């Protein structure tokens, strides 16, 4: 051994003159961290400590945070006790955000693909090279397809998203697709069909609350998740209807394991009771609503006895709940919730909820459902050029495209045959519909889409039916992903641009609507660790390179180009982002300074806003200007103007279970499971299976099973429990990632994108995540 070491060190040249190691004892002691000495309650490392106010970005809620930075490192994220929206709370994810900038897996520098797509061969490039490369590809795509909409832009909500749209609008594509149809588009559509907008619920003042399929104890929403337990008025009653006994169910005064997709029947029967027993708010109905007589006529047939057969809740209970709801009105809430990508025709379910709120006058008053108020910001008055080579959205004529993704059993039962002729007509153009858009791209109908940009969205994991998403990506000539981590989607990109984390960024001001409206922005809590940029800088960089390529501007008026250079590039993108923010806040003196100090801004001391629509002559956003119990536009479009009951899809074979998805309080979708502080709470997911069913199948708790749908198959542990109906199974999303290797959640548990069928709600374009039927077998 000794010889070997000597031979290895031969090149060093032998040297003598050894000094005894002991000589170093005293000095080496100096290398130690200062001993803590006597206990002085101070366990924080000595050094510079700073507190910086900003806002969370671990999910959509944007709760107030105060970063505690010690010696330049984020030690902890504390909640901001003053923030009126988050009410001084910070959840597990928000706390675990302190690990986000320090994830070794994060993207660190622009990467350019050098091998085949998905092969994982990359080279590092500079930002300058990256901007040039992207601009050149945009120019090539425009030249080849002579249609700017041949490049599609996907994104998800977030403060920087508005700068992504600077890029979109500077290129001029109309094909944008957002997360909305994966989440709450049916909810927005259904409630808006009645009230013209999507409201919030005043859980801090409601006396009676019905939650259908919302798990506010786990799928956290601020302020609702705070209010429904912390600030609920004494004596408030909470009724929860959910096929699962959720944490919210555990908090309920009464929990009903309702049969899936029969919520509509339950509420229709409530309407039947309330109207037939004259328990509704006659004055409110007469003053504000349109179509009561038609509604009254329609609900006649929906007796509690009829509903009992549908939803498996005793008729007497339905009657009692209806009476109690009316009794407590207007301080009664039929809870809108958030994600509603549940069932086909979900829009009608949500429309029914809204109608219940309307007939009882539970609208825009304390303790009711209340339209969101907002603090208007000053927007930059900019006109993007009008490009000649821009075709209409690829999914414009969606009717023919989506037949494949609407099961025949639910194809427009209200008009007999065929699809509603409007299909995606009610979508916000900008949101698009993921499933419809993907169908259109796959069919090249009416034109090819061959460029794909993706900003902080992970469609490979998030959009049901992953095989179709992969096929769509394969069609692309060019894929650019702007991300924080190497997501499953980024992995298939041609170029990956690393975005700074929310703790390293200046993000523009945003007005968050609600009963307690608030303005927030972000400032860097720490310096960026790596060579990352924000979307503001990335859009600016790409647009500058685009301006160097004349062919990208040959289909606009030269004067438009000059205006664009001046108004968009020089006046906004070339200026510091702080100027942009100050302009947004120019109406409110001192707001910018307050945002720097507190992380949020409110007017009127952050008081709740009620009653803005309860004024004579107020025009609701509807055809009649009234609250429409009978929707005139739906009638025009050949839809059901009243939410007639729609039968749920049924399993095709005995032995099939309906698959439900949801989440827990310590993860957001598919993005947080790899965070060590969240991973340790739950290392893999397991499928909930009713005790009786498990016995029939001979499956023990903790045993691995195969769950199989027509889309795919996953292996997962069984959680045998009384907490779920016998006809359903459930697991939380975000596990069983495709990523190979040692990722914490790679092949731990099961992925939902691998098994969920891409069923579409035709009115909103929303996906229906609970319309997949599965079989369960021992693995």
């Amino acid at each position, binding site marked *: 051994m000794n010889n070997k070491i000597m031979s290895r060190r031969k090149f060093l040249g032998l040297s003598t003159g050894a000094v005894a190691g002991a000589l170093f004892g005293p000095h080496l002691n100096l290398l130690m961290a200062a001993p803590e000495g006597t206990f002085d309650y101070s366990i924080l490392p000595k050094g510079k400590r700073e507190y910086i106010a900003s806002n969370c970005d671990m999910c959509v809620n944007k709760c107030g945070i105060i970063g505690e930075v010690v010696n330049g490192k984020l030690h902890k994220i504390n909640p901001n006790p003053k923030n009126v929206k988050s009410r001084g709370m910070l*959840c*597990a994810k928000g*706390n675990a955000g302190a690990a986000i900038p320090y994830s070794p897996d994060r993207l660190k520098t622009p990467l350019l693909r050098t091998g085949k797509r998905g092969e994982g061969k990359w080279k590092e490039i500079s930002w300058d090279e990256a901007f040039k490369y992207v601009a050149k590809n945009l120019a090539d795509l425009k030249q080849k397809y002579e249609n700017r909409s041949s490049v599609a832009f996907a994104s998800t909500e977030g403060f920087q998203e508005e700068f992504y749209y600077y890029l979109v609008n500077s290129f001029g594509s109309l094909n944008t697709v957002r997360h909305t149809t994966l989440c709450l588009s049916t909810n927005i559509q259904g409630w808006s069909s009645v009230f013209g907008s999507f409201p919030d619920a005043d859980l801090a003042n409601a006396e009676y609350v019905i939650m259908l399929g919302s798990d506010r104890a786990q799928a956290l929403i601020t302020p609702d998740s705070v209010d429904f337990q912390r600030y609920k008025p004494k004596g408030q009653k909470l009724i929860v209807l959910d096929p699962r006994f959720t944490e919210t169910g555990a908090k309920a005064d009464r929990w009903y394991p309702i049969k899936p997709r029969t919520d509509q029947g339950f509420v229709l029967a409530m309407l039947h009771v309330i109207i037939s027993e004259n328990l509704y708010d006659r004055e409110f109905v007469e003053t504000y609503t349109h179509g009561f007589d038609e509604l009254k006529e329609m609900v006649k047939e929906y007796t509690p006895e009829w509903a009992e057969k549908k939803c498996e809740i005793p008729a007497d209970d339905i009657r009692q709940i209806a009476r109690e709801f009316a009794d407590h009105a207007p301080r009664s809430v039929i809870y809108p919730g958030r994600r509603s990508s549940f069932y086909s025709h979900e829009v009608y379910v949500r429309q029914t909820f809204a109608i219940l709120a309307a007939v009882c006058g539970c609208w825009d008053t304390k303790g009711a459902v209340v339209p969101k108020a907002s603090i208007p910001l000053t927007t930059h008055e900019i006109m993007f050029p009008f490009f000649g080579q821009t075709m209409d959205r690829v999914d414009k004529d969606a009717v023919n495209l989506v037949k494949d993704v609407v099961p025949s059993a639910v194809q427009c039962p209200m008009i007999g045959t065929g699809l509603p002729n409007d299909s995606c007509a009610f979508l916000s153009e900008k949101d698009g519909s993921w499933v419809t858009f993907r169908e259109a791209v796959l069919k090249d109908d009416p034109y090819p889409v061959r460029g794909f940009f993706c900003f902080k969205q992970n469609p490979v994991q998030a959009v049901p039916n992953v095989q179709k998403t992969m096929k769509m990506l394969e069609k692309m000539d060019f894929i650019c992903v702007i991300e924080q981590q190497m997501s499953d989607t980024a992995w298939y990109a041609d170029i990956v641009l690393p975005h700074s984390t929310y703790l390293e960024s200046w993000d523009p001001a945003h007005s968050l609507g609600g009963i307690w409206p608030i303005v927030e922005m972000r400032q860097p809590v720490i310096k960026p660790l790596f060579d990352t940029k924000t979307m503001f800088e990335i859009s600016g960089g790409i647009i500058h390179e685009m301006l160097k390529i004349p062919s990208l501007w040959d289909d606009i008026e030269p004067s438009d180009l000059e205006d664009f250079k001046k108004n968009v590039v020089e006046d906004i993108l070339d200026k510091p982002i702080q100027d942009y923010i100050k302009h947004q806040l120019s109406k409110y003196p001192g707001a910018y300074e307050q945002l720097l100090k507190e992380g949020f801004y409110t007017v009127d001391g952050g008081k709740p806003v009620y009653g803005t629509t309860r004024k004579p002559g107020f025009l609701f956003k509807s055809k009649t200007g009234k609250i429409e119990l009978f929707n005139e536009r739906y009638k025009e479009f050949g839809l059901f103007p009243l939410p007639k009951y729609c039968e749920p899809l049924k399993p095709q074979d005995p032995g099939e279970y309906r698959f439900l998805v949801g989440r827990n309080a310590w993860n957001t979708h598919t993005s947080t499971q790899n965070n060590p502080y969240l991973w340790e709470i739950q290392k893999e997911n397991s499928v909930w299976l009713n005790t009786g069913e498990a016995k029939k199948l001979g499956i023990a708790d903790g045993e691995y099973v195969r769950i199989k749908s027509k889309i795919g198959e996953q292996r997962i542990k069984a959680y045998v429990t009384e907490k779920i109906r016998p006809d359903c199974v459930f697991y939380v999303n975000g596990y069983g990632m495709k990523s190979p290797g040692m990722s914490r959640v790679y092949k731990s548990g099961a992925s939902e994108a691998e098994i969920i069928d891409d069923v579409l709600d035709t009115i909103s374009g929303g996906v229906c995540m609970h319309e997949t039927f599965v079989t369960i077998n021992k693995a």
Partner: protein
Amino acid sequence: MEKKRYAIVLDTKKCLNCKACTVACKFENYVPVGDDTYRIWVTELPLQGKFPHLHQDFQPSQCQHCENTPCEKVCPTKATFKTPEGVVLVDYEKCILCKACMTACPYDARFVSEHHEAVEKCTFCMHRVSEGREPACVETCPVRVREFGDLNDPNSRVSRLLSSRPYMQLKPEKNTRPRLFYVL
């Protein structure tokens, strides 16, 4: 003025089982990621009843800061000690990692910390309290399950809760006289 007597009162009926407190504690106190290293935790108590008549409670727990302190008694080096306010602490310098305290603790509230090279546990975040801040778990909780305060102050939240609501303590048969109170 009378000296303070610190305590935590928990209203577990509100607990969402969201784990915000446990993650906040880990960051605040440099508690390493790991199944065996935690100062506080939330237990899902057994599901009661049969489908569809079910009931379930969630119970956050931690070091109970016992007035009658089993861990202090067994510590051979006096590393575990009580402050005048009744907070049970560990002097990490004195701890020799003999783990006698871990065995003695009826609440399984102690663990070996690599960071401190000592046995450690909840400190009521005294480093924050001494700065006028609340313990991290109290502050971060969405529904305010925990209240922290001075039992000797009749107007403190903890005193008011205890005077207005019945409460229980964990493992009363151990006669530890915990400073954690669970209101019913």
